[in-house]
């Protein structure tokens, strides 16, 4: 355990308003802390360099899954377990459910949140590829007000996002337009459970309309929606060359660029033939 624990501040504001006001008063000083499944790992490895956090874990305003006729609204504190327990999500957004089921073990799923998974901005996160193909939108909330962003625009580079210093990612909206789609998700990890992904593939396609949406994790500095690959497929190609040009996998302690590239292409082929 490699952190000087007494040097860290963690406060628990009683309301969302209070949390936003504190963040506004000292922009950049306070960062939101949800379930802690990413931040505590960094802490214990001696790699958590920021030391002031606001615990949002108990803020009811940030929980809950609201089903409307045209969309599903998820509070940022929706845990992976919450996703798995929701019938609408399982039925209409199976890739999100698959991602939730393959993130860590049950203990991690009980504690890990969608908001945290997004904001931690790891390119290897399990839910972002699903959120990208489902055209998710995210709400960035501050004491100045609320703004909605297409999730496609949220990640700007490796571990950098459009989240402002006084902003909180409060809700995620999923448009309910997946009827009749074929959904394909494959996470390739280092083992069958409790694994960081080496390649993560999420795809949906519609037989009648020919629409295809593809997103991958662990093959670029950000979770990547593969627009150019989709275009190449719409034009009648197999998308393999376009995919190779669009993703930028690397060698790291878990895998190699060559493996990630080849497996991504294999998964694309399997997706298109499934």
């Amino acid at each position: 355990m490699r952190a000087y624990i007494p040097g860290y501040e963690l406060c628990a504001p009683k309301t969302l308003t209070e949390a936003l006001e504190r963040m506004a008063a000292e922009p950049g000083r306070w960062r939101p802390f949800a379930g802690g499944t990413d931040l505590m790992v960094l802490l214990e490895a001696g790699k958590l360099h920021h030391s002031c956090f606001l615990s949002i874990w108990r803020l009811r305003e940030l929980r809950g899954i609201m089903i409307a006729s045209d969309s599903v609204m998820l509070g940022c504190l929706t845990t992976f377990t919450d996703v798995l327990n929701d019938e609408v999500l399982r039925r209409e957004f199976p890739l999100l459910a698959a991602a939730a089921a393959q993130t860590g073990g049950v203990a991690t799923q009980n504690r890990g949140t969608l908001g945290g998974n997004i904001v931690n901005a790891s390119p290897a996160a399990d839910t972002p590829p699903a959120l990208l193909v489902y055209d998710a939108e995210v709400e960035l909330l501050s004491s100045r007000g609320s703004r909605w962003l297409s999730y496609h625009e949220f990640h700007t580079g490796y571990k950098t996002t459009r989240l402002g210093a006084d902003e909180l990612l409060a809700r995620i909206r999923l448009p309910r337009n997946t009827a009749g789609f074929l959904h394909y998700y494959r996470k390739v990890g280092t083992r069958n459970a409790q694994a960081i992904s080496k390649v993560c593939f999420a795809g949906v396609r519609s037989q009648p309309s020919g629409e295809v949406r593809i997103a991958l994790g662990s093959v670029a500095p950000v979770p990547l929606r593969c627009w150019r690959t989709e275009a190449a497929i719409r034009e009648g190609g197999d998308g393999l060359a376009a995919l190779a040009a669009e993703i930028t996998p690397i060698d790291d302690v878990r895998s190699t660029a060559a493996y990630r590239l080849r497996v991504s292409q294999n998964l694309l082929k399997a997706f298109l033939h499934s």
Partner: protein
Amino acid sequence: MTYSLVGVPVPRKEGRDKVTGKARYVDDLHFEGMIYGTTVRSPVARGRIKALHFGEGIPWQDFTIVRASDIPGQNHIALILNDQPCLAESIVNHPEEPVLLLAHPDRYLLEDARRAVEVETEPLPAVFNLDESLRRNVIIWGEDNIFKQYRVEKGDVDSAWDRAHLIVEGEYHTGAQEQLYIETNGMIAIASPERGVAVWGSMQCPYYVHKALKAVFDLTDEQVRVIQTETGGGFGGKEEYPSMIAAHAALLAWKSGKPVKVVYDRAEDMTATTKRHPSRTRHRTAVSKDGKLLAMEIDFVIDGGAYTTLSPVVLSRGTIHAAGPYHCPNVRINSRALATNTPPHGAFRGFGAPQSIFALERHLDKVAAAVGLGVEELRRRNFISKGQSTATGQVIAEEIDMPALLDRALRESDYRAKCERFARENPGSRVKRGVGLASFFHGAGFTGSGERYLASVVGVEATSEGRVRILASSTEMGQGTNTILTQIAAQTLEVPYEQMDIVQPDTRHVPNSGPTVASRTCMVVGKLVESAALGLKHTLTSLGLLKDGYSFAEFARACSSYTAQHGPLRSYSQYQPPPGIYWDDEKYQGDAYGAFAWAVYVAEVSVDSLTYETRVEDFVAVQEVGRVIHPVLATGQIEGGVAQAIGYALYEKVAWEKGRIANGQMTNYIIPTSMDIPPIRVIFEERPYLYGPMGAKGIGELPMDGPAPAILSAIENATGLSLVSIPVTPETLMTAWEGTDA
């Protein structure tokens, strides 16, 4: 009345404490006034220490600081050669080598302080792998980087090549493997010049620690006391390393005057402590037209890391197992243990045998293909049998029937039917399936004259109420020592298992029954327990205090009478080698082990052509083990060993960066989870070994030897890919696959 506990699955002695959280491991203990210790370590693989810089903002005056110059006795960890320093003084020879010790009551501040010490070094050229070490451009140990070498000669290898129908060559590699016991290393020490040294902690060999502490502090036997606490896994990883951490805790205690606890976090344990020796084996084999082995020439090299530690013994076992349970009239084995600038490699279940057996079994598959025989047929034609001799010239004295064991394994695993089915189905399937096998043996106990040298002693004592206690330094670390030793004693004395205790290993109270390693605890120590128990019974019967067919109540009365008249009722037994065992250390020839356990393992795998991932789908483990003392514990040993070996074959890759493990966290060092392990079927055959307790042989390490080559044999059956190096990760499998038209 025959009282039989053998083969009965009695409840584990300490089982209840383990399932209730009452079992106390070292980090669960707290001593009055205790402070915490930590270790400052070398940032480089090899270098001269220029200075130590103590950073600002830390109240250094409140810390206990220990340097090499503070060591009262010898600055080395006594083992075989005494070349490993307890604390580096002027030169460091591996990353994470211990340089300085710190202690303080505040665990958090202590960690801050550790990071605030800078070890300034002037780097020296370093060596990071076997090739670099062999090349000898840089000499880092002795005159030639060689810790130890052996040569085994049988028959006349050189004359056999001309007679061969075929000569088959191959080279095979195994990687390092981290033991990854779930409880990290930890020690608590109380020490002072006036009272001596006492340590409590996680360990396999209390008397190894005892010997090491005597040297570091220049103390006598009585002045050092070592107590084993409940140990959360060892697998060899706590055979020699605990001496180092015990010395560190004791040095801090000695200087501070307070009890000191040193417990490693996972990152420190993974980066600084021992791993399985990486190996490279070259085989050259002469085979006849009908697949008989005519000659085997084997070159076996292991990477020992920066200091000698146990490498000579790992090399020994690997060498002796290198030619396997086969008969070959001409064998030459050249083996070497080499130095590199990595943390010293050490004991891990199998101890050299998994490495050399991997190479042999993969090579025999290659030989089989060259001669046009199935993998099982090639082995069938060459299995050793009674009256034939091994590579070291040991004549097999038991009625071992390896062909029958092979047949059983093939039958139980449905091998032939699966072979046919997979051959038919694979071309049209995205997922390729295959079956493979490995046949092997594993010698139990210390090699050659080792057991005689250990001269182990066990005591059995009875209280006046008839409660019986076993006195041995053999440690429980999950494998079932407490249970089977008490089971053996209970059966021998014919008293209820519930009346038996085993004393916590404490060098003040128990004799040295040798280290808990080498698959020797049941076979060698168990036999001593049996004879000590017989001795105790004889003491009572010879005085007429006990008659045949006694009840427990009569036994208790007899103990009471005896102790009232004569004092403590104790019986000791010391190791006697079985008759007819002869070993020549110079020529490395003779009877290497008192007994071998024999096995054939069959693995079924699936390989996904989409992701190049290999899954083990089914596993059958058939072994002949003498006698099964406790069916649940014995099965547990096999299942656990198979699981670790599946990790060795497919998942556990150590990524090295200039001599340091780069994936030193559980997130990135991958062991199998409950979702990665196949159903494992364990089948025992029993042919009682005359000199084992109730006929038992040792089995703790046996299951580590077979699974890796069986899995690679199955991958070859599934894909046609002949892989020669483990671990086989999807990345390496893909590279091999893409290099063919598979």
